[in-house]
């Protein structure tokens, strides 16, 4: 297929879509489903089944999960209208309103900052197209980058665009994608592999899931482009088994893309061939780590191994392997379509483009957002997120999940980019962002993440296996008010040991939630110490005077 043919095909599909005057989109992502989107979809479909001028579509995540189920109506020649908290009983009213005035009662103001402050690249099709129809993806400029690249660009040219874009890995590490790609492309011939990391381990985040479920073809296109650029012929997508819908959609997408000639032998009648296989995880957080993930693809226990050699040098079955995150691949098609320079014009000096965040916790507008790099945390939490609910007081925002940290109010004006967040004691992470208010104890939060790391430690190296256990025991003791100043000192020492000595990123970053809460909320730890116990068995808290013991003053100063 040549570019002109693709354009014709896209135009044809667009025209066939013109037949319907009213397009009713129902968000069918997990958030809206849990508030009853399925029955709304069924009711709307049933009530419009007779009409040729109305089409009802199930689409991916529209973002504002807090107000679900969401329904969007686009009538020809009119601005789209979004409805929130739609129920089965509202369906008739929505149908009756088509062609007339919108149902004001259900309306979700689309001029609210939640929508207007976002910048969508990765999520441009999410909530818009039907993810199960390859036609809809093609009509939205899908596979344009792929056809253009394999028929008119050399692999080196594709590489250069990715390099120029300044795209950095979205899986948490922030390693420059262009650099990784060129390392793999320079490895001498033979088999090479492209792996997409869809393990999404952060236990409070669902960005990759949303991308895979809402726009699976985008990830496939990104992977094929990667294969072309680095000279690989086989790809694997590793998806958590907990995401059955993502697996189902990907399976269909791979089948449809192969049928259309975008995947498989001789893509677009060129000499380039590339296939993709799906591999399922089985519920192990450590499998998100790249070397563990590859062990799991090979059918083994998902235990990491020391690096180097890096996967680029020796990956799957010993072959050179390019491994990137779902969101990283999802950024590739627009980069090739619109040019690396365009992408590099968005964001900050060192962090380009946009980032998808899953916004949750004590915040009004929970949901999925995509914002340009460099936006401040305050804008995300208060402008887009609408701030904390009434009666709540903002306390901290957590990013990076079990590898990340909590930042207090004073840091809210920091721009979101890889390097500033790291300097502040947190990390960008893969995109989970949880807001906490006065009801969350920071010691408790640290203990929660430590329990997670303890459960998920694969047990291969001692610092992580034993260290997370000991740190959890200490945190538990402190949280229950039995901790002493010595315990706190021991905890800090252990943090350093585990960070320095662990084999893989899981152990190396497990102390982060403790360290960041200690850095920014040390008083909460100290207050717990003073609650019930004194160092070395002093009198219980109830018999103590108001002045804290000398030793704990030392540690706080």
């Amino acid at each position, binding site marked *: 297929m040549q570019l002109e043919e693709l354009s014709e095909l896209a135009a044809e599909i667009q025209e066939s879509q013109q037949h319907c005057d009213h397009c009713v989109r129902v968000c069918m992502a997990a*958030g809206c489903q849990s508030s009853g989107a399925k029955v709304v979809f069924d009711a709307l479909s049933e009530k419009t089944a007779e009409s040729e001028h109305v089409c009802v579509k199930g689409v991916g995540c529209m973002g504002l*999960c807090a107000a679900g189920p969401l329904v969007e109506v686009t009538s020809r020649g009119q601005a789209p209208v979004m409805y929130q908290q739609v129920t089965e009983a509202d369906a008739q009213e929505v149908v009756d309103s088509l062609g007339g005035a919108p149902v004001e009662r259900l309306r979700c103001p689309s001029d609210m900052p939640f929508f207007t402050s976002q910048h969508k690249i990765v999520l441009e099709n999410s909530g818009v197209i039907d993810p199960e129809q390859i036609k809809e993806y093609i009509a939205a400029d899908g596979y344009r980058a792929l056809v253009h690249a394999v028929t008119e660009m050399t692999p080196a040219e594709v590489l250069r665009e990715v390099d120029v874009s300044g795209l950095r890995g979205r899986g948490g590490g922030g390693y420059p994608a262009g650099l990784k790609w060129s390392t793999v492309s320079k490895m001498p011939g033979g088999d090479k592999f492209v792996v997409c990391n869809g393990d999404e381990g952060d*236990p*409070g985040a*669902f960005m990759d899931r949303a991308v895979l479920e809402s726009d699976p073809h985008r990830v496939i296109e990104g992977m094929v482009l990667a294969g072309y650029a680095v000279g690989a012929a086989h790809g694997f997508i590793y998806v958590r088994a907990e995401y059955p819908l993502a697996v189902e959609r990907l399976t269909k997408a791979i089948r449809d893309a192969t049928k259309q000639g975008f995947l498989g032998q001789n893509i677009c009648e060129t000499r380039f061939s590339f296939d993709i296989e799906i591999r*399922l995880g089985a519920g192990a957080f450590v499998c998100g780590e790249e070397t563990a993930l590859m062990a799991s693809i090979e059918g083994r226990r*998902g235990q990491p191994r020391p690096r180097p050699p890096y996967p680029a040098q020796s990956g799957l079955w010993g072959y050179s392997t390019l491994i990137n995150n779902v969101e990283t691949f999802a950024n590739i098609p627009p980069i090739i379509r619109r040019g690396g320079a365009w992408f590099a014009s968005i964001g900050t000096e060192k962090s380009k483009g946009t980032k998808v965040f899953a916004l949750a916790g004590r915040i009004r507008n929970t949901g999925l957002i995509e914002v340009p790099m460099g936006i401040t945390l305050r804008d995300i939490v208060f402008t887009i997120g609408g701030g904390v609910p009434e009666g709540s007081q903002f306390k901290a925002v957590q990013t990076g999940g079990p590898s990340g940290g909590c930042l207090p109010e004073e840091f809210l004006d920091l721009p979101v980019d890889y390097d500033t967040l790291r300097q502040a004691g947190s990390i960008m992470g893969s995109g989970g962002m949880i807001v906490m208010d006065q009801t969350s104890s920071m010691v408790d939060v640290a203990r929660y993440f430590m329990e997670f790391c303890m459960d998920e430690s694969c047990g291969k190296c001692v610092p992580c296996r034993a260290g997370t256990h000991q740190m959890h025991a200490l945190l538990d003791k402190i949280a229950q008010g039995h901790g002493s100043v010595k315990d706190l000192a021991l905890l800090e020492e252990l943090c350093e040991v585990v960070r320095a000595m662990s084999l893989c990123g899981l152990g190396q970053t497990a102390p982060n939630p403790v360290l960041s809460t200690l850095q920014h909320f040390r008083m909460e730890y100290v207050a717990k110490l003073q609650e019930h116990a004194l160092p070395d068995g002093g009198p219980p808290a109830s018999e103590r005077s108001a002045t804290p013991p000398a030793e704990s003053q030392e540690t706080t100063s």
Partner: protein
Amino acid sequence: MTLQLAKPAPPDDDKRWKMVEVTMRRSGYASHALIETLHRVQGLFGYLDEPAMNFVAESLGLPLSKVYGVATFYHLFSLKPQGKHTCVICTGTACYIKGARELVDGLRQKYGIELGQTTPDLELSAVGARCIGACGLAPAAVVDGEVLGNLTVDQLLARIEKVIHDAT
């Protein structure tokens, strides 16, 4: 000379083993199909017992220890039979902040099981999950495949009661 290995026989004449064999055949009985195959067995039988693991080990030419090692490494694989109904409680960060622990406590009080356990009458299994993608509606749980958001303990228990009652 090629060595002709006898095809190992399934543990019994249950028809579902045929489907397990299809999965293994599709990947040419390669050892890297182990996780896929175990998923298949668990999907069909609900859990992995020793005869099943033995059969998979022999078919893929792996030692039983390898299969056992993999089956016990991954949280999703279960070596014990599961209950008729499942309640998955999300213990991800968002749900934790919004009170997932109370749901777990409620379940323990009413049914006497922790996450990862099954009631003795094999009616209900409780499972913990880390983020089910409904963080916006935390705390969330999944009862027999249905995602429930903004849950209170009472709502959760009522829902479980209902699925158990409806099935009997």
